[in-house]
């Protein structure tokens, strides 16, 4: 399904340009090197790449062809970066060549004016008749890091990971990639949908549901063509994989921009929200939450709302976190006599430790104390998940604590652990270790509690 886009062996870049600030140049460079901007994630595409340009004999050191039909051998995918008025002719050539998929970068179609609308429906019809599947027009392109595939004019190759990101805004993808490199969020695929003339959100959702590398789906959505159909697909996909939505155009003020952007109307947000929650999806309020939820849901097992424990080296942070849990309807675990007994007799607890949930280990807690506390609490059968808070004290062993968390994660694979390393500069090593080992970590208790709530909701949906 959609292999021509996600597993192509040969790609033509039509409108490959020598002008370094053009989209066509960006796409070619991205395929040949992995990205326009330098990044350690950049790698050349594993398959063949052919520039197409009627006026050049070679671009970026690659032999260039006048037309798609001049290229020797089979072409799976064509990225079309010529201006809108020239697209139809290129599609004719692609049809002759037997190309199975095209990505149309150019704007100036249905999103702009009546003339553009007509042109878009002509292009769509031509592609349909020629059995060519189409992404766009008016899009950034696609990314498939596992294939070293960056068929876009975005900044660079994202990290390989297990979140599929489908976006109706191309510009948002650019920034998300930049940000994800810092946060160490990886992607199984990123698709900029543009006007969704042919392939639309529901097609990519179905694809993601069957893609082995995808563990969660993150979606940025503006307009919806067919809410009913979206609902049905989300209902099916969310049985297999979590789906998180970020929807723009909640209020009338944002509507104008959205309409001119994707050329279709945004529906009523309340209705959208109800429909998606009913279908087992998650709704994020902003970009950070979109990826935080997708990340947590992709990496952690779902969680029964039996009892969540909080372990902390700062009393205040523990109480803050417990408050957020209560607000969100998360049940807090009661630590059993057996658990307290084990902690009492461990010999590493501070005499003033809280002996209650939130379990305050007191500020001078070193990694050995965290280790005993985490393992003892998780061993209590009715503790279904754990939030580990670390405030920064001068003696805190940030990195060792992170290692303790990772080993507990492996020892109790069915019980999610969410870290809350509060701080910045001095906690960085520990945070980097957690990120590298895919333990969700948040800087503030509220985000940790929200992440746990998402795992609880996921569990309730799967049982439904």
């Amino acid at each position, binding site marked *: 399904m959609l292999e021509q886009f996600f597993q192509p062996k040969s790609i033509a870049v039509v409108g490959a340009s020598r002008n370094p600030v053009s989209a066509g140049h960006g796409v070619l460079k991205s395929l040949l090197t992995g990205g326009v901007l330098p990044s350690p994630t950049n790698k050349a595409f594993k398959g063949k790449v052919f520039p197409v340009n009627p006026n050049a004999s070679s671009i970026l050191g690659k032999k260039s062809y006048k037309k798609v039909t001049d290229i020797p051998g089979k072409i799976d995918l064509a990225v079309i970066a010529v201006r809108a008025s020239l697209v139809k002719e290129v599609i004719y050539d692609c049809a002759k060549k037997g190309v199975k998929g095209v990505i149309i970068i150019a704007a100036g179609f249905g999103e702009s004016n009546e003339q553009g609308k007509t042109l878009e429906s002509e292009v769509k019809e031509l592609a349909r008749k020629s059995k060519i599947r189409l992404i766009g027009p008016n899009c950034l392109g696609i990314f498939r890091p596992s294939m070293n595939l960056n068929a876009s004019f975005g900044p660079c190759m994202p990290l390989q990971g297990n979140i599929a990101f489908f976006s109706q805004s191309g510009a948002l993808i650019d920034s998300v990639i930049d940000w994800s490199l810092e946060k160490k969020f990886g992607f199984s695929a990123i698709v900029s949908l543009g006007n969704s003339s042919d392939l639309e959100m529901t097609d990519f959702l179905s694809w993601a549901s069957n893609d082995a590398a995808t563990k969660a789906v993150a979606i940025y959505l503006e307009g*919806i*063509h*067919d*809410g*009913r159909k979206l*609902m049905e697909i989300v209902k099916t996909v969310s049985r297999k994989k979590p789906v998180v939505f970020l929807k723009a155009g909640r209020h009338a003020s944002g509507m104008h921009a959205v309409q001119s952007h994707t050329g279709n109307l945004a*529906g*009523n947000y*309340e*209705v*959208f929200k*109800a*429909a998606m929650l*009913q279908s087992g999806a998650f709704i994020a309020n902003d970009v950070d939450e979109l990826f935080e939820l997708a990340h947590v849901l992709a990496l952690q097992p779902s969680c029964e709302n039996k009892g969540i424990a909080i372990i902390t080296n700062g009393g205040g942070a523990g109480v803050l976190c417990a408050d957020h849990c209560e607000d969100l309807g998360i049940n807090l675990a009661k630590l059993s006599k057996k658990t307290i007994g084990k902690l009492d007799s461990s010999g590493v607890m501070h005499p003033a430790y809280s002996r209650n949930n939130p379990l305050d280990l007191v500020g001078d807690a070193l990694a050995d104390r965290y280790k005993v506390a985490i393992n003892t609490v998780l061993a209590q059968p009715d503790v279904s998940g754990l939030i580990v808070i670390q405030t920064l004290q001068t003696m805190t062993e940030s990195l060792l604590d992170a290692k303790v968390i990772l080993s507990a994660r492996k020892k109790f694979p069915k019980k999610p652990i969410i870290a809350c390393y509060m701080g910045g500069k001095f906690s960085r090593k520990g945070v980097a270790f957690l990120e590298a080992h895919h333990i969700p970590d948040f800087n503030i208790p509220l985000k940790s509690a929200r992440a746990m709530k998402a795992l609880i909701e996921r569990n309730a949906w799967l049982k*439904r």
Partner: protein
Amino acid sequence: MLLDHQESLVLLRKYGIAVPKTMMFPIKSSFADVKSKLSFPCVLKVDAPELLHKSDLHLVAPSINGPGEFQQEFANLKKIMKNQKITKGRFVVQEKIRGVELIMGMSRDPSFGPVMVIGLGGIFVEIFKDVSFRVSPLTKKDVEEMIEELKGKKVLEGFRNQPKVNKKEIIKLMMLLDKLVRKEKRIIALDFNPVMVDQSQAIVVDPKISINEGAKGA
């Protein structure tokens, strides 16, 4: 256009939706014509096509406890109707239903189709907009969650001297309503305000059903 009271009741009964015991009399009836058929307490209303465009004109006597009161209210309504030149329609007499007020409704979203709503009646809906939505078709679990989402849901659990209401009956009614709007495609919007619920029943007291112009009787 709106269905009149008679048509609404027929439609609701067809789907097994409970409505109050109702009698209707021609607009020209006199007190002598109707008095032997009355039982109390009751509600007296005027159902007239002209009224659909006069929402400020509230021709309802909400609580009548005996024949004397009835005669007085009856004369009063007749006087207003004469002044307003209302000549078509009928009188509706319904048994007085008590309980906690809910609202239920449906509107059709161009993208998602029928959207179902439930809320607490009176000031809860008017001031606090305390309602929850779902897209049809509903499951029983959906309706349970919709009730759970209402901020004022305590009112349903026997708050102060109110009776604890029968949630099963609320769920049953929502499921019937859901079925109705899926089958009756000519309905474009629907409002039950109020629905009265108590320990044993959920009854639609005042249905307003808008249908697609030209689809009447279809």
